[in-house]
């Protein structure tokens, strides 16, 4: 089986844009949660969100005017993150007039919701006003689910498989797993993988209506995202893009590329909406099987896992998730690996969460740290036995391996284990 490594990262996140600042933000425990005026104006119960800042300015520096006219927010974020990952891997951005295609490089770039900001902000108002022809030529590519991966393929002349996956909040992690398997099977040398989601009150409205968003912290945005906490009362919606450049070890070594981490083991499954699972809740047996599946896939011993960047969203599911990790790894409360929740800093970026949080996990295993998991000074009573494992301050510690999980509506699960690269 071919080994797969991470040679590039790209991030557009609520607390930082670009990998160097994102790593600083993680180490500082910097929050990207702010008050959101659109949510307030439209009468949302939750009026805080994690919205990446300055994305348009970055996009204007990187893409030409014609391209920008056809790029909604998701296109801009995913293109910036993909371009950063590509350059971070030491690859060269092709000129638009260069007709060569890179047949060995592809992309799996997912989205949970798709171009709903364009649908709601442009398609519906214009069609309802009987102004169909005013939509112009760029609407389809912005609302089609695969628009995000298609956009990136055009910028980088990707000629291998280019597709968009969607599995709700496990989308970004699933994309990385899909790309990893493709490289393992010898079908591609390099795959840009991850997820993207736009920041839009239209996207978040349904979650607000479900009462799953944090609604008691509108006056203290940085305290609103509270995974693992007794006072957690729902997630804070987020947005952005996180992209990993996955590469076969042979290709990376042939190019002399800097290797950030190895993808050791991966697994996806579904709990089948049974055994306590449903459209909106995970079947714990499915979660445990998925974690164990990722370990088995990589031939990883449970005690090699030194840190867990969980799905931990700050809903009632956090205690059950911790219990599932303990069961899957066979760890007693005092012997759990370090626990952290990137969502405590950036909120829940839905389809982008897995991409951004896998990028965070790669940075942690590469740099030997576990970033601070904020806002759980009052650990949930059911998680209290594991409290000593929670990184409430950033910990500097060498990690042999870090496990990242993403769970999504539909009872779908994705787990990826990233290992420290030792040349």
């Amino acid at each position, binding site marked *: 089986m071919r080994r797969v490594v991470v040679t590039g990262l790209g991030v557009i996140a609520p607390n930082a844009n670009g990998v160097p600042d994102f790593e600083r933000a993680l180490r500082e425990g910097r929050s990207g949660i702010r008050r959101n005026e659109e949510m307030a104006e439209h009468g949302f119960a939750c009026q805080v969100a994690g919205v990446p800042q300055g994305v348009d300015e970055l996009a204007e520096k990187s893409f030409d*005017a014609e391209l920008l006219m056809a790029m909604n927010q998701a296109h801009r974020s995913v293109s910036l993150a993909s371009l950063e990952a590509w350059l971070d891997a030491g690859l060269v951005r092709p000129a638009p007039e260069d007709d060569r295609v890179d047949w060995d490089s592809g992309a799996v770039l997912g989205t949970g919701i798709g171009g709903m900001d364009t649908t709601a902000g442009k398609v519906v108002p214009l069609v309802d006003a009987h102004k169909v022809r005013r939509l112009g030529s760029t609407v389809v590519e912005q609302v089609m689910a695969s628009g995000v991966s298609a956009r990136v393929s055009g910028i980088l002349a990707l000629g291998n498989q280019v597709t968009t996956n969607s599995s709700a909040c496990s989308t970004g992690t699933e994309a990385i797993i899909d790309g990893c398997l493709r490289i393992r099977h010898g079908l591609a040398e390099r795959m840009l993988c991850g997820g993207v989601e736009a920041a839009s009150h239209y996207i978040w409205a349904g979650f607000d209506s479900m009462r799953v968003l944090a609604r008691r912290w509108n006056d203290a945005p940085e305290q609103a995202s509270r995974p693992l906490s007794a006072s957690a009362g729902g997630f804070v919606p987020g947005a952005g893009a996180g992209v990993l450049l996955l590469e076969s070890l042979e290709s990376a070594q042939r190019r002399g590329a800097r290797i950030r981490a190895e993808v050791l083991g991966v697994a996806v499954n579904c709990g089948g909406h049974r055994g306590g699972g449903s459209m909106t809740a995970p079947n714990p047996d499915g979660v445990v099987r998925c974690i164990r599946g990722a370990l088995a896939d990589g031939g990883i011993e449970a005690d090699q896992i030194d840190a867990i960047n969980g799905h931990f969203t700050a809903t009632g599911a956090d205690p059950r998730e911790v219990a599932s990790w303990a069961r899957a790894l066979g760890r007693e409360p005092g012997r759990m690996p370090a626990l952290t929740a990137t969502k405590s800093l950036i909120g829940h970026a839905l389809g982008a969460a897995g991409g951004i949080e896998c990028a965070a996990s790669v940075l942690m295993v590469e740099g030997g740290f576990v970033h601070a998991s904020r806002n759980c000074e009052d650990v949930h009573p059911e998680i209290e036995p594991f409290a000593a494992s929670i990184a409430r301050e950033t910990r500097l510690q060498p990690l042999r391996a870090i496990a990242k999980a993403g769970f999504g509506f539909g009872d779908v699960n994705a787990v990826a284990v990233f290992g420290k690269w030792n040349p």
Partner: protein
Amino acid sequence: MSKEELFAKVVEILTPYAKNRAALAAVTPETHILDELEVNSARLVDVVLAFEDQFDIEIADEDVDAVETVADCVALIQQKLP
């Protein structure tokens, strides 16, 4: 608006769509929009919408079929202007 001003405005609207920057730099009324400026034909509908917005006119789809050069655009807009 003079013909020269109209021409300059049309070129300005075409600018972001022109893939051939050399052809754009040397643009004349006779320059062909698709063949020389290498504007993506799918984007012509956006160019026409930009004309409509800029000059506050309406352009029928049939009118667009006859447009090939920058001069054709200028003539079409002139014909629609009040």
